[in-house]
């Protein structure tokens, strides 16, 4: 599980001589230095594209910064991950709207290059809904439990199971279909 272990994510920044705003920024910097790489990987897997992932992670830290103004964040790790997942889903929906329909196969953020073309599993993953994809990534890359996934997604463990089952069924169906071709 790639969590923000060992990182003092809640304690005030140990920086003196800073304004409150400066302290908040310093605190977010500490989070960034420790966690942005893992969040970026998550975002890459959710969007399939590096630049989009960078934008999302950047905005995630912006939101963390904004949220930190309201006081300590009890558990930053799932909170940050949830932001990334939500931003990725928002982006997915927006792309759908812009294209006036479902995002066509292989067009997920242009990540249909050589590696994507060769990797049928990846292509199948990219054809899932944003929610299903998030569940699969959190389960099989982040190694989160169903309960942890539910926390990130703000849903129930039952719903997580349902999404996971449907995602697996869909992916297997896609893979089988392609194998026949």
């Amino acid at each position, binding site marked *: 599980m790639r969590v923000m272990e060992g990182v003092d994510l809640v304690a005030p920044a140990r920086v003196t001589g800073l*304004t409150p*705003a400066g302290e908040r*920024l310093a605190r*977010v*910097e500490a989070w*960034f*230095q420790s966690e*942005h*790489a893992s969040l*970026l*990987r998550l*975002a*890459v*897997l959710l969007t*399939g594209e*590096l630049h989009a*992932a*960078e*934008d*999302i*992670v*950047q*905005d995630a*830290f*912006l*939101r963390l*910064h*904004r949220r930190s103004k309201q006081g300590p964040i009890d558990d930053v790790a799932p909170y940050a991950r949830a932001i990334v997942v939500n*931003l990725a889903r*928002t*982006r997915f929906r*927006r792309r759908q709207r*812009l294209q006036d329909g479902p995002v066509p196969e292989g067009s997920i953020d242009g*990540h249909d290059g050589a*590696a*994507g073309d060769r*990797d049928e*599993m*990846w292509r199948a*993953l990219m054809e899932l809904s944003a929610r299903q994809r998030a569940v*699969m*990534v959190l389960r*099989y*890359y982040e190694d989160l439990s169903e309960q942890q996934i539910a926390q990130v997604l703000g849903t129930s463990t039952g719903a997580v199971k349902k999404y996971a089952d449907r995602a*697996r069924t869909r*992916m*297997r169906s896609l893979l089988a279909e392609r194998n026949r071709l």
Partner: protein
Amino acid sequence: MSFEEELKGSLTRHAALAEHSVMDWPRVSGHIRRTSRARTLASLPLALALAAASVAGARMIDRAPSSLVAGGGPVDSFVYTVRRQNPEKDRLLASMRVEVDRSASYRRFVNELDVEALPDLPGLEAPVAAGDAPPSGVPLRMPTELVVAGDVVYARVKPEAAIEWIAAPYTGPAPPPHFQVGLEPDHEYGSAAFDWGSHAGFDPATMRAALEQDGSLEALGAATVDGRAVTKNRFHLDRDRAVEARLASLPDDQRLRHLIDFLRHELDAQQAWPEDAEAEVAESEEPRRRLAIEAYVAEHLEELIEVLGGRDYVDPLAADWTRRAVAEAVGEDYDMDLLVWIDDEDLVWRMVEDRRPLGGCSDADKDFCEPPWVDITTTELVSVGDPVSTAVPDERSVRYVDSVPTGWMGA
């Protein structure tokens, strides 16, 4: 290999794409600072932000004469009006409409220009008043996305880009007092044109004299009107500028008091006040209202000072952000689209690179024509009524109208 194992392997391989990222803290913190600043300013009334800038001891007028005040409202559309006396035709020459689309991604904007038909507005052909001629060849920073259609320049840019562009500090010599450039949010073209026409009576010198006499807003208004009809909004904008100038001219220890006086006028005139304070002053009792004002300023002052650039220098962009109520747009949930990262790829910078040589400066205008503020100019200003091009040019074929100073307004 099982399905799960194969999926994990695929995810691991693709996650490696993140290793190519160039993301770093300076980039992200810049993004945070920029957007947080906009949000902070968004939450504050215009007058307060201006006041904080002045109270902070900033010399906003000297460092970066502000361009224009926007009273509020979402920044969906700017109308940027450029007025210059055409020695041959004496008419309003150019107007620029900057449309802001909140939903589309920034990168799409670069390649999607809208060229609209020239509006058929009587005000567009109104003769320019005598003595209202701006200098020629005053430089303008323009984004490459501009399209000149007849007398109208169209551009579609992201709010940040438009703001950065228009709010870019003008560090050249002060233009003559009658030359003014305005940026108006949420105005229809005609409204802006009308405002612009009415604005011809604005005389900074007269205004300044009025301020020196008693500093009253009434006197200021009289100076501004100058015998012409002035819209309420216009008057308000003029007044804000004057107050700003007034604040900047005061000693540090007098600014806050003057600010409070000004805010009281603001309240009386517009009842524009944050909701939380509004409740407190609901009974309109002057002492309580005054206390509420003071408390509000005191509460936000440090933060305002910080977001505006500190005590020694007010970030003109930050100030203008407020002034244009950008934050109303930012304050909505449009982060992914609105809060784009502005970096070297941004049009703000590309527009600077796209400067063009200037020609035809007279001796009188030389100061305004000299580099580095020589950006764009052409002598082929199209008169109203000329055929309007509906073609969408590429970046290199964009035609520019006469240059005007950007980021400058009033005296």
